[in-house]
């Protein structure tokens, strides 16, 4: 497939991403288009971080990899993370050390062994800032020959588009917090506490029809299709905690 054609196809798929739930599928699609297997979005670790998993927002990596990585606290020794202290340029690695034999000394053997076992032979990570002033990594892993410069350029553009779309959705979700009226919040809170519409109506001295109307508006505002989703999202957005 031509580069322009691939980029155009993936770009339209990325911009069609309407919810964060679809992000892992898109990450996987982008990775596979470049002969890799996994894609992830995560917060950039700070010097005090010892574990990777709490930083991961979306990933197609197997959880077993994350557990083993964290059991050894490899994040503290990861040469890629260390390099971002000096530069925001994308970083690549090749654990077969085909293009840069000096790289071998940087990688702890146990960490290399773990990544090889999970087929994470080569990888690339891009760093992007969000308007919330935090930094995020978009990372792709797999087992293929090292990426050529033109592939890096193309992937960089796609990673930026994925991150931009993902981050916009994430920030939109947070903006919804203020959108619910006091009454709608109250209704959602009572639902989370296990009350039916009739019971909430009795508590608030309103008819159950009015309660259902508040609920429907709240669902619309938070882009949910049922009350379970409404409660789950309200908890995730910390609206009712």
């Amino acid at each position, binding site marked *: 497939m031509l580069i322009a054609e691939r980029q155009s196809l993936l770009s339209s798929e990325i911009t069609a991403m309407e919810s964060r739930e679809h992000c892992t599928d898109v990450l996987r699609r982008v990775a596979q288009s470049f002969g890799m297997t996994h894609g992830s979005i995560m917060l950039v670790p700070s010097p005090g971080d010892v574990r990777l998993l709490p930083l991961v927002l979306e990933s197609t990596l197997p959880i077993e990899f994350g557990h083993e990585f964290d059991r050894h606290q490899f994040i503290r020794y990861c040469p890629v993370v260390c390099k971002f202290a000096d530069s925001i340029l994308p970083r690549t690695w090749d654990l077969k050390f085909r293009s840069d034999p000096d790289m071998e000394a940087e990688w702890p053997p146990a960490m290399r062994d773990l990544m090889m076992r999970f087929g994470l032979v080569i990888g690339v990570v891009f760093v992007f800032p969000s308007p919330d002033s935090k930094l995020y990594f978009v990372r792709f892993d797999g087992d293929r020959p090292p990426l050529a410069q033109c592939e890096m350029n193309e992937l960089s553009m796609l990673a930026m588009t994925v991150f931009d779309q993902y981050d916009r959705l994430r920030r939109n979700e947070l903006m919804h917090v203020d959108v619910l009226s006091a009454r709608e919040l109250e209704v959602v809170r009572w639902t989370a*506490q296990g009350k*039916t519409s009739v019971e909430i109506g009795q508590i608030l001295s309103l008819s159950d029809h009015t309660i259902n109307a508040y609920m429907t508006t709240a669902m619309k505002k938070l882009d949910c299709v049922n*009350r*379970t989703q409404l409660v*789950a999202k309200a908890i995730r957005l910390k609206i*009712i905690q």
Partner: protein
Amino acid sequence: MAWRSYETRHRPLENYHAIGLHECDVIALAQAMQLCGFWKLDIDKGLFFGTKQISDIFEIEHIEGPMNIQQLAERIHPDDLDHVSETYFRACSARGRFHTIHRIITSTGVVKHIRSVGLHRATDIGSGEYRGMLHELFPLQPMASVVAL
């Protein structure tokens, strides 16, 4: 460290009747060595029902009728809460099977791992419901122990 999966491994139902076991034996076995409870989630109404063992696992007072999801959420490890709520959010669209492993913090501050499995079941009207099981998860270390009956 929360983790979810929607990938399923289809296995035929074990023919436990053929060897003289019954459904109640299977439940008794599931609960023999660890706390294991069962739950039901009405998707459209957002109501979560659980057996007493669910309350015991979360160390909250058991009441008849729908459980207080907010109270359950307060017991979930803060780092895992996003993941767990998102799992249930997605499950309500996917309407298939899922399982999720996450941590909860007990009243004494002890962190324990639990696993929740859900299976969607269609109902005559509406989005249907999830029926599930939730149990404590122990570190998978080789061990042998006998509990006197």
